[in-house]
C-alpha cells in the first residue's frame, strides 16, 4: 500500500514529523494499527538495520530512524492496547552492578524501542536480583545485560544462575554484551547469546522471538 510505503521510506530518512503525520493519516484511513506497525514502521526499520549492518549508513542515521519509530509508536500504542494486540515483546536491560558505563546499553535500548519492542531500562549499577525480579514482575521474555569492565562481568553469571534457580531458564532468554564480553564468555556462563553491537543485539533478540522464545 502506497501510504505504508511512504511511512517506511520517511522513517528510513529519519523524518520523524512526517512519519508521525503519515501514521495518523493511516489510522484515519482505517488501516489497522498492526498493519501500520508491521508493514510501515518495522518494514522501514528492517531496511535501516540491514543498511547499518552493511556499513551503508551509520549510527546517527539509525538513531534518527529509531526516534521516528518511537514517535509513531506513541500514536499506535494506545490503539494496539485497545485492540488487545501485544507489542512485539518485553525486554529488560541494564548495566550490571558496579558498572556505571551506560552508553552501549542506552544504544541497545534506543534500537530495541525503534524495532518495536517494549524496553524496561533499569539503568546502570543494577544488582543481579533486580534483573530477575523485574523480569518476573513484568513478564519479560528477554534480559539484556551490559558490562564495560572486566571486574563487573561476574554479575552476568550470577543473573544466569539466579534465573536457573528461579525456574526462568528456558522461559526468559538472556543476552550479554559490552567491550570485554565475548561469545566464549557468554557460552561459559550459560547465557543464551552474545551481541557485539546494538544492531546485532536487536537482530539476535528478533531471532529469539522468531524461535518463539
Amino acid at each position, binding site marked *: 500500500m502506497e501510504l505504508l510505503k511512504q511511512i517506511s521510506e520517511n522513517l528510513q530518512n529519519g523524518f520523524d514529523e512526517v512519519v508521525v503525520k503519515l501514521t495518523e493519516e493511516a489510522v484515519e484511513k482505517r488501516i489497522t494499527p498492526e498493519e501500520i506497525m508491521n508493514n510501515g514502521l518495522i518494514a522501514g526499520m528492517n531496511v535501516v538495520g540491514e543498511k547499518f549492518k552493511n556499513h551503508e549508513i551509520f549510527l546517527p542515521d539509525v538513531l534518527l530512524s529509531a526516534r521516528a519509530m518511537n514517535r509513531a509508536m506513541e500514536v499506535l500504542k494506545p490503539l494496539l492496547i485497545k485492540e488487545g494486540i501485544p507489542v512485539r515483546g518485553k525486554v529488560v536491560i541494564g548495566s550490571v552492578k558496579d558498572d556505571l558505563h551506560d552508553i552501549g546499553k542506552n544504544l541497545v535500548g534506543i534500537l530495541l524501542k525503534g524495532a518495536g519492542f517494549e524496553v524496561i531500562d533499569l539503568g546502570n549499577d543494577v544488582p543481579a536480583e533486580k534483573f530477575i525480579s523485574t523480569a518476573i514482575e513484568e513478564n519479560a521474555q528477554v534480559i539484556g545485560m551490559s558490562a564495560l569492565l572486566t571486574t*563487573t562481568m561476574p554479575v552476568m553469571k550470577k543473573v544466569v544462575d539466579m534465573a536457573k534457580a528461579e525456574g526462568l531458564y528456558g522461559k526468559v532468554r538472556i543476552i550479554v554484551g559490552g567491550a570485554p564480553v565475548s561469545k566464549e564468555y557468554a557460552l561459559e556462563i550459560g547465557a543464551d547469546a552474545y551481541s557485539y553491537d546494538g544492531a546485532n543485539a536487536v537482530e539476535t533478540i528478533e531471532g529469539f522471538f522468531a524461535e518463539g522464545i
Partner: protein
Amino acid sequence: MKNMLERLRDGEILIGDGAMGTMLMERGLKGGECPESLNLANTELLEEIAGLYLDAGADIIQTNTFGGSPLKLASYSLEDKASLINRNGVSAVKKAVEGRAYVSASCGPCGKILKPYGDTDPVDIYKSFEVQMQAFAESECDVICIETMMDLKELLLALSAAKQMAPGIPVMTTMTFDATPKGFYTIMGDTIEKAARVLEEAGADVVGSNCGNGIENMVKIACEFKKCTTLPVIIQSNAGLPLFEDGNLVYPETPEFMAEKARELVNAGVSIIGGCCGTTPEHIRAIGKACRESRTR
C-alpha cells in the same frame, strides 16, 4: 625542555605511554569506581604510574583525566569537583616527571550523544569541555590530548573549547576507527580522510588514532592519515581486543609483537607512538627501543 611541536617538525619520533585504566585496576581500583576520583584521594598512585612509564622511556605521559569532563563525572556525582580533579591529575604527573617528559592532559568523550540524533545539546557538551580545558590551562600541562573520540562533531567541540580556554597549548586529537569491509570508519561514520581534513582546518596540532582493534590495523590507519594531512601523526594502539583465558581476561599482543609493528609505524611516518588499553610499561619499553633503532637506521 625543547618545544614538543618543534621536535616533531625536526623529524624526531616521540614515545607515548601505555594504559592507565589497567594499571589503576591492578593497584586496587574497583569496578564501578570512578577512575578520576583517585585524583582527589590518592595522587601518589598517579605519580607512581607516571614514574613507571617515565622509566620505560616515554617522552609524553598522560594524566588520569580521561573522564574528567563534568558531563562524564556527573554519572558519579563528581561534576562539582571537575576543576580540582583535572588540576590534580596534571599536577601529579608534573610532580613525577619533573620536566623529563611532556605532560599530556587527557580528555575523553563526555559519554553523551549529540542532538539531533542523541539527546544532549551541543552547547552543554561544549560548556562541559570548557571547564576541563580551563583546568588544564591553569595547571599548565604541556599538551592536551583529546582521545578515543568516535563522533567528529563532539571532538570539534572539545577542540574548540581547548583553543578557547587554553590558547598556546598544543592539542593532539585521536579518534577510534573500526575496520569495515568498506574501509575505516568511526561508529558515527566519520572517515580518516574527513577527520584529518576537518581537524587540520579546526587547528589541531597533531592528529591520529588510539585504542582500536590491535596494532596491525593501526599501521593501515597511519598510512591513510599520512596521505591526508601534513600534520604530525600520533598512534596509540591497544594490545588487541581482550580474550578470555582460564577465567582471566588477557590482551593478546605482546611487547615484542607491538615493537615489531611499531617499526612499521615509524616507516609509515608516524611521529608519536604509544599504547592504549592493555599496554604496560614493558610494551612501552619495547616500542621505544624498536623506534630508537629505526630512527638511527
